[in-house]
């Protein structure tokens, strides 16, 4: 455990140092996400004339968007780092120094989650200030939200591990990641609450969907999912994320082995 914390510190320091060397990248990323949101928002406003309807659905709209922000980073960041580290030549040094690479990837995911969270706070404040719509996030529900957020995003990191593994074997996979981001955009926005029956169960077994809808319950409806009246929802979310995380880990391990067999950790 202490070892994990130390690794966490090492990864955190490394990623903060690297980010600070090139702060422009960070700013541009945030700025693009902000512009994109405002584009979507203004577009929606011109379509939905009724201000009341617009206001009612805006919370959900913002939440889905912010969740998608997490998705982008969770899906692609690990793989992106592996690609560039393989190209630099530093990946082999990492594998040699810390051979339990899956554990290292998990720690990197945690670091990445925290940096994403900080960026989301900035993005969210900008968005809320621009739209005048302040989400009901406060001391009362912040812990519930964080819990739901962490569990939901953990499932997405499962997909991140799959891409990281594929990056180990195939090196250039950036394109696939981009396409997946759009698939997740759809999942973040799909109004799963409005369907019912088996279709709903099927839909909730996809990543992201259940988590987003639970977070909306807490933030938009100001209700709670922790009062024990619907325990299967929380249980479902935990199982959902655990399964994707497990699948991701398994795929990563297979790919790691494959890349050690093919000798593709370095430049070759």
């Amino acid at each position: 455990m202490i070892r994990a914390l130390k690794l966490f510190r090492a990864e955190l320091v490394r990623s903060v140092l690297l980010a600070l060397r090139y702060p422009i990248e960070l700013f541009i990323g945030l700025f693009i996400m902000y512009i994109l949101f405002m584009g979507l928002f203004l577009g929606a406003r011109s379509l939905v004339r009724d201000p009341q309807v617009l206001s009612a659905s805006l919370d959900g709209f913002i939440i889905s968007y912010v969740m998608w922000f997490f998705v982008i980073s969770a899906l692609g960041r690990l793989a992106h780092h592996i690609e560039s580290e393989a190209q630099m030549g530093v990946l082999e040094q990492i594998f040699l120094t810390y051979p339990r690479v899956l554990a290292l990837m998990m720690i990197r995911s945690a670091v990445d989650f925290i940096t994403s969270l900080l960026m989301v706070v900035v993005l969210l404040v900008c968005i809320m200030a621009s739209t005048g719509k302040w989400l009901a996030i406060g001391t009362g529900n912040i812990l519930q939200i964080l819990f739901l957020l962490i569990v939901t995003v953990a499932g997405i990191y499962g997909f991140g591990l799959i891409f990281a593994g594929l990056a180990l074997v195939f090196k250039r996979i950036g394109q696939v990641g981009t396409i997946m981001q759009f698939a997740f955009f759809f999942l973040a926005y799909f109004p799963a609450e409005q369907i019912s029956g088996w279709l709903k169960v099927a839909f909730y077994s996809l990543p992201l969907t259940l988590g987003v809808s639970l977070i909306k319950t807490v933030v938009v409806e100001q209700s709670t999912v922790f009062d024990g009246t619907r325990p299967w929802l929380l249980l479902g979310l935990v199982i959902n994320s655990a399964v994707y995380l497990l699948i991701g880990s398994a795929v990563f391990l297979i790919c790691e082995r494959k890349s050690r067999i093919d000798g593709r950790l370095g430049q070759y």
Partner: protein
Amino acid sequence: MAGTTDQQDAFRLEGLAKTFYPILPWHRHRAVEAVRGIDLKVPRGCIFSLLGPNGAGKTTTIKIIAGLILPTRGRVVFYDRDGSELRSRPRLGAVLEGSRNLYWRLSPLENLYYFGELKGLSLTQIRREADELLEMFDLTKKARASTQTLSRGMQQKVAVAVALLGKPEILLLDEPTLGLDVESSRLIQKRLRELVERDGRTIILTTHMMELAARVADRIGILSEGELIAEDSLPNLVAFFRQQNYELQLPRSEWERLRNDVSAFRFTEERSSDDEEVRITFHLDSREGFYKLSELLLSRRPQFITISQVTPSLEDIFLQITQHYAGRKGDEA
């Protein structure tokens, strides 16, 4: 010179082989046999140099030892200081792609800290070792500069310093002095020697630079097309090849008379500048060869100027072995 057999082994390669298969199954016929069954014992506390032409399998072998490539057959066995077999790979240090084994956007010190923490060292331990290592490689002044602004040689030294963190028993270096100036190269050599002599560490290094290998290595292994075709200490290799290389100097007219009779032997010829004399170096496979050659020559009664045993340089040995080996392969085919 180290490298006697009574030394304990640091590790052994047992029937190590590696074939790379292309990712697409229908390209399997393009498989590359990079390493073809290497057996080797590397004694503790020595510098072992792997030599071989391009594509001989040096890098592949080193990466298998490092655990970065899984072998197709065979295994690497590591031993601890009292000679018992280790269950897993001990901590290794490696510089495999030279200066590229670092984060270029971080400073040398930051690289040392990051990799030190990955190795599980405590911060105080890292601080102490980092100071020592930076001092050792003359990098203290550049400790906080961005690594990408350093010269190639300095980057290379940083990479070696990172590899030495945590005092690994075994150090693997792939072309550690490639592209370095004489001074940096000498400094690295000197430090490596100290590590071996003072701390009894074991170093495996590949290189194309024969002078480097001749100067620092206690033992030398020559790889060709994935096979280890010679392996011994440098003095033994030289002594062995001394017995196999004979040089004749004689007038050109004499040589023309003899030439056809000795065509069964392998030799190289060199003419003097006035074209009056030739110098022939015979490469013989065994003592027998020497007796046969002498008999033949004596029966012709040439007017010798000189005949002498040649002390080959490592480069001569290398060329002779690899060429001879390639020739034999060609004959088989």
